[in-house]
């Protein structure tokens, strides 16, 4: 057969070298576990599914900042710690596995900070990054709109030049903006040149909008369980000074897509329902073969996904942008998050309830009500499969 001749096809884009964590990173893991044990003892961490969306605690975020566990890979002059991505990987996987309340700073640390480092001005970096690394400044992301979901390039929020004011006027509506009401800044993608003038990926730009700002209205969009994380954000002639433009006007698409490998490959893409799996393990009987098989099969997938996610962290450390493998992790990982629900139902039948005194019933309830989001947020699995197919050279 001819495997040798196929090395040049798109399947090579899937292969990333394996990664072994350095001893310093494992030492760091011990420190994080000690910290988590202390926080648990204080009652700060109460494991529940989907902590990076729904676990919110400003004091906890600040304590992570004090420990040096935010902005870990950023330069020291901006409050960072100049550590490899693999160190950050260890910290975030430990926090997520413990279901720690990381929701307030999650997006800031994962992608807003790196975006500023890559495209921000020196002034923006000096002004904002130290607070982000301290866990006291929070960002949110303004991408989706009422008529723009998977088709992000179709955004209709406009940025119009206002020479007299020395900036840009933003008009339009963003939706599903997580934690906008708890953030200090929002990075907004909008159209600064009409669609007709070029390709559909041209004419998009990114701005940093201060919250609050005159003309900016934030209102809640409640999730299925009644929690308030999402918002609608309306821009009515909001003035953004030139100093708050990110990167170059017109280059917004390239800038946004460069965030995606960060956004799609992390452990938050397969650990959202770990608290449910842990409750299932607590009630399981090791001599019940059906339960053992079901749990073993889930653990095998979790273990595999962790290895894959680690490979991507290694690639990021080398300065690569492994967006196809990242799409694979997110597709498989979010599918597993749902499968944990299905398997729990099949081997440990329990009626889900958010206010039951049975932890398994509570976690199942939470996981079920949060589950539709797993395969939507950060790119639907259908979009991801399109990206994988394109990476393979099929489209």
């Amino acid at each position, binding site marked *: *057969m001819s495997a040798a001749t196929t090395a040049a096809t798109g399947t090579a884009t899937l292969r990333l*070298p394996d990664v072994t964590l350095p001893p310093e990173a494992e030492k760091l893991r011990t420190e994080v576990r000690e910290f988590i044990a202390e926080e648990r003892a204080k009652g700060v961490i109460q494991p529940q599914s989907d902590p990076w969306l729904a676990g919110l605690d400003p004091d906890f975020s600040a304590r992570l900042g004090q420990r040096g566990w935010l902005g870990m890979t950023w330069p020291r002059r901006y409050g960072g710690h100049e550590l490899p991505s693999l160190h950050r990987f260890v910290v975030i996987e430990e926090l997520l596995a413990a279901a720690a309340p990381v929701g307030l700073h999650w997006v800031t640390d994962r992608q807003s900070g790196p975006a500023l480092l890559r495209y921000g001005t020196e002034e923006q970096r000096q002004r904002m990054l130290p607070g982000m690394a301290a866990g006291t400044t929070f960002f949110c992301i303004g991408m989706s709109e009422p008529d723009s979901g998977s088709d992000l390039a179709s955004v209709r929020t406009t940025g119009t030049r206002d020479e007299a004011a020395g900036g840009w006027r933003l008009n339009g509506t963003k939706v599903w903006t997580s934690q906008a009401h708890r953030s200090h800044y929002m990075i907004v993608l909008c159209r600064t040149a009409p669609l007709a003038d070029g390709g559909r990926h041209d004419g998009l730009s990114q701005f940093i909008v201060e919250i609050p700002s005159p003309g900016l209205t934030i209102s809640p969009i409640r999730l299925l369980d009644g929690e308030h994380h999402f918002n609608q954000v309306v821009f009515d002639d909001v003035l953004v000074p030139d100093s708050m433009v990110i990167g170059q006007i017109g280059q917004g698409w390239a800038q946004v897509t460069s965030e995606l490998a960060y956004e799609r490959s992390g452990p938050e893409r397969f650990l959202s329902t770990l608290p449910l799996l842990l409750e299932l393990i*607590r009630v399981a009987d090791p001599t019940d073969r059906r339960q053992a098989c079901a749990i073993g099969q889930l653990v095998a997938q979790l273990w595999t996904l962790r290895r894959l996610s680690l490979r991507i962290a290694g690639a990021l450390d080398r300065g690569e942008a492994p967006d196809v493998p990242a799409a694979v992790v997110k597709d498989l990982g979010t599918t597993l998050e749902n499968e944990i629900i299905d398997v729990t139902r099949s081997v440990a039948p329990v009626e889900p309830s958010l206010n039951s005194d049975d932890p398994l019933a509570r976690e199942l309830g939470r996981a079920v009500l949060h589950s539709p989001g797993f395969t939507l947020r950060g790119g639907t699995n259908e979009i991801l499969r399109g990206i994988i197919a394109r990476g393979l050279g099929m489209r």
Partner: protein
Amino acid sequence: MNDHTGDDERELLRRTVAAILTDHCPPELVGASEGGWSEPLWKRLAEAGLTALGVPESAGGSGGALTDAAAVVRAAASYAAPLPLAETLFPAAAICVRAGFDLPDGPLTAAAGPDLTYSRRDGGVRFEGTVARVPYARVVDQILVVATDGQGGEVAALVDRAAFTLAGSDNLAGEPRDRLTADGVTPVEVAEVAPGSVELVREQGALARSVQIAGALGEVLDLCVRYTGERVQFGRPIGKFQAVAHLVARLAAMVTSVEAAAHAAVLAQAAGGHDDPAAREAARLAVAAAKTQASATAGLGARIAHQVHGTIGFTQEYRLHHLTRRLWSWREEYGCDEHWSAVLGAHVINQGADELWPTMTRV
């Protein structure tokens, strides 16, 4: 930190194997070797020093790491090479090293199971009993046998194939899987081995099959990508249809996950091959996870590949079947996903929920 150098070396090995197999392992040879093997092909790989990799030179091997052996096995699987290479480099080599035997020249297979026992008599050792489905037993010169005495003792021995009675049967791909019967066989060279060696054969076999499944699935994916780019229906390559593209994308995700799981298990075995009980246990769990993942995925991958290929893939006219018939066989051999997920799951439940994460990050 990043295992980059090792990766480059493995890529070089893969290319070396691929270059040989591209020339000397065409689909016709694979088909003609069913029910047997290809001795000339084995000799070519042996001359290139590829059939004793991962075994220390002091034990008669050609040195190198277990990851090197895995790279060779994986590449051979992607060509459906009709050879007991996985059996030689994983279960047989592992038991040879454990028993202190020099790895003999030529292909090997390992036979072990609960129904094969030994007894001591007149200062010697006698084997009795049967082992079902011993890979390639009918073509190797020597068989590495591991047996128990029913009281916790285990021995390993290298025995001439001719000393056993073999009843031939094949797997779905025509690879020999013979029933071996020992009726008072007395070996020349015997060594006591640590308890758990019978199980080690299964574990090493499962590891080898995981690596092979990764290799075969990788080639299946390549075939699917190529075929969907060439096959035109409704005026365009079928890969342009979203429904087809998504099938192949799912297959790609499966391939990626099985490859990662198998590779991680090889690394864990390399780290836990010796005496440290904690590392040994971690290695065993890694194999359990990898074989669970590989076996559970093999059939799904084969199904997608056949759906994408249409009727041509369902015939012997096209080489897909050499790979898919192996996938359908390998997923059951040395323990199916049900077996290994039960091993992993029971361990996890026994350890307790709070130990799950520490265990996962150790392996």
